[in-house]
């Protein structure tokens, strides 16, 4: 057996090459697995992969749609980068996104009859603040009671979703909407301006790129960013240096809440244009993959958000052209994350051929002894 002949050995120091190669490898493996999957579904793999990953970008419309999906992904991902750098495992961008959309949408509906340039900024700011408030709950639970943020943020995601469902099934339902669980369409004063006429891409893409630039500067040029990195790398060193753990925890969670909230309200005041149960499409979760695939580096994250945006479009394309289910999107995202985590093992370990005549319990021992 081949598994008896190879073993994992810790590298003397982490491999920089592998850190950058790992996402590429993960993408290649995802494409191969995807091809096999298509083949097993009776499709020509090359044609199917082309339909999934290339065809969506064959015209300007495709590219603007890509931007429409990159914007919310990138906003959420930049917020999550801050949290993950500090090793605050905020899984709650989804909930913060939904609350931002719900809060902003609520205000926009209240101001349905009001005309004025100030309506849109007010809606956006309120939406972002709702995201902040949702993240503040997780921050409070963590700093005050030591509650694990992974659990609290996941639970808060479900609460947020149920608030949204309650809203669109109840008080926020469009009275003239034939009892569909949807709000009325928002007014033009509460709608984000588009970048090009006739396309859906709106100015939230600028928000996202601006956020990426700001977070990059924060993390690489300022003391706050440095403190966040130290806290994530080594809590004891952060305490020793006198960095304030609780304050930093609040900071990263609130920033992430604000950015995810802005993404949510931009979605509601942009491509969706009303409140529906489906305002998110899982952007808050997909953004987690974006952050890791992009190696927590702003440039990488921009590229990764484009790839993840493409999986959304590819899923729709596959549904239309190949009559395959749209849930392929989730499948591809999942495979990508799985392969990425697998390949990341090779950053600090390498595969070696075991010397012959040793018994096979040794590979495990090797791992233990050097871990």
């Amino acid at each position, binding site marked *: 057996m081949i598994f008896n002949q190879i073993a994992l*050995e810790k590298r003397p120091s982490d491999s920089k090459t592998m850190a950058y190669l790992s996402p590429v490898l993960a993408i290649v493996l995802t494409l191969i697995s995807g091809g096999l999957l298509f083949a097993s579904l009776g499709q020509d793999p090359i044609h199917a992969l082309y339909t999934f990953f290339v065809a969506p970008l064959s015209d300007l419309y495709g590219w603007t749609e890509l931007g429409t999906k990159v914007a919310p992904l990138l906003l959420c991902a930049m917020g999550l980068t801050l949290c993950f750098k500090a090793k605050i495992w905020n899984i709650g961008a989804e909930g913060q996104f939904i609350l931002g959309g719900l809060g902003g949408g609520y205000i926009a509906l209240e101001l349905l009859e009001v005309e004025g340039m100030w309506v849109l900024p007010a809606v956006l700011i309120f939406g972002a603040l709702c995201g902040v408030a949702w993240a503040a709950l997780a921050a409070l639970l963590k700093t005050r009671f030591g509650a694990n943020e992974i659990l609290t943020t996941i639970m808060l995601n479900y609460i947020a979703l149920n608030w949204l469902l309650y809203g669109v099934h109840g008080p926020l339902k469009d009275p003239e909407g034939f009892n569909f669980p949807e709000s009325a369409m928002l007014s033009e004063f509460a709608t984000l301006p588009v970048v090009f006429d006739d396309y859906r891409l709106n100015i939230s893409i600028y928000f996202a790129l601006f956020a990426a630039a700001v977070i990059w500067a924060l993390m690489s040029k300022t003391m706050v960013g440095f403190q966040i*990195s130290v806290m994530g*790398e*080594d809590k004891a060193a952060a305490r020793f240096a*006198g*960095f*304030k753990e609780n304050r930093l925890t609040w900071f990263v969670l609130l920033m992430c809440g604000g950015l995810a909230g802005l993404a949510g309200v931009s979605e509601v005041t942009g491509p969706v244009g009303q409140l529906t149960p489906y305002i998110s499409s899982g952007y808050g979760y997909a953004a987690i993959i974006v952050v890791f695939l992009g190696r927590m580096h702003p440039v990488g994250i921009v590229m990764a958000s484009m790839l993840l945006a493409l999986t959304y479009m590819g899923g729709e394309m596959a549904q239309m052209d190949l009559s395959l289910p749209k849930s392929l999107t989730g499948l591809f995202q999942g495979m990508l994350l799985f392969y990425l985590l697998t390949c990341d093992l090779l950053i600090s370990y390498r595969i070696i051929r075991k010397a012959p005549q040793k018994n096979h319990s040794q590979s495990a021992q090797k791992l233990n002894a050097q871990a």
Partner: protein
Amino acid sequence: MKRIELKNITKRYPGCIANQSVALSVDAGEIHALLGENGAGKSTLMKIIYGVVKPDEGEMLWEGKAVQVQGPAHARKLGIGMVFQHFSLFETLTVAENIALSLPKSEVKSLDALKERIIDVSKHYGMQLDPNRYVHTLSIGEQQRVEIVRCLLQDVKLLILDEPTSVLTPQEVETLFKTLHQLSDEGCSILFISHKLDEVRALCDNATILRGGKISGDCIPKDTTTDEIARLMVGDDTPLTEDYQKASGGQPYLTIHRLSYKSNDPFATPLKDISFDVKAGEILGIAGVAGNGQEELLSLISGEETTQAAAVKFAEKAVAHLTPEKRRVLGLGFVPEERLGRGAVPDMSLEQNALLTGYQGDLTQKGWINTAKVKAFTQKIIEQFNVKTAGSLAQAKSLSGGNLQKYIIGREILQNPKLLVCSHPTWGVDIGAAILIRHALIELRDQGAAILVVSEDIDELYSISDRICAICDGQLSPVAPTNEVSINQLGKWMAGDFSSVPTDSNTNAATPLTNAGGLTS
């Protein structure tokens, strides 16, 4: 026939060779020393004998027969016992329960019978031990006895002791040596790992010296001078002797006044009514076996723990309620015991690690990092403290222990602290780096800084401190000028016996200075 014989043992780890063609043999009843600096490969060799690590090459003969030790259980079956530097005892179980856990089932028929055997064995070897006591109530020395008795219960033919004296007071060391002599008289071989030459000369019949994973020499310690052995340990290029003038200091800078403290951690040592001061321009040394409250005291001085303001003062200013950052503004520099994972972030570059405590000077402006100045500061530390590294962007974890410690101490000293607190400044550091570090501390003292050094290394404390004291079970002994405290006196203090005080400072000394020569290497 030799009891054990190692031939041509080689063990490689990624990036280093821990043992290279090492040969070693021990007779029955022989006490054999394995000497070498930290990182010389002593521990790896012992782990190979005990079956924890498998060698890449070479063979081992046990009583003349070639064996491949499969693991610690197999080693114990052969008659090899090992006492590690860090004990593996369950604190919440009794002595007898701990020992029962490590014996094969067939040997533990009843706990009562076992208790009797424990009492018999411990009496026979002069190591008082009550099998009914809980391990957390035992001193470190007593815990070591549990480990040794546990080996002796199993008809041991070779006992390996890894730096057994580093956790003991001088008096406890004597008791241990008596036991070891008795064991060797009864035919048990002993492998004694240490880097304290005087102990080895007092105890061992033969010595093998390792340097950089290879054998650099063998000798009969009783017929060899300390200098000759030290030369074999460190090589030819390192100076061996140091001699520092004592200083008397000026105004007190750090004042601890009636400090009592109990942290939330149930295993922390509560501090009981501690008072002392450190003057500007002097070095105060605190001796003591680890775990007697040093960590707690230091984190109250560094600001990682806080308490009522007036308990800690920097130059008359109450600071015990302040954060580490504010205390640094007042002139605190701090060198913690843990280099990686507190004093430095392992995965970050040296530049980033310079910023870790250097952020308050001109390295930052209004929260923005001045990269050029950070780089310049890093270079300055590397040059002035002779840090061997691939460059200022190398990760902290890529540095050897000694180089990283030079870097951390340099980082603190170059910020011109008024008070420098060092915990175990040269622990695990090679002799060359240790000398550089001590020089730097003396130089800083002569520039007028107050320096507090906490260490388990008594020789070092005698060499650099101007006044000395000891901490035991959260209480501080009296403080006295170093040359008025005999090694015996300090040993009593370390064991918690604070009577027979050589009264503080300049009044006549109760004990003449008989120490120095005896222990300094």
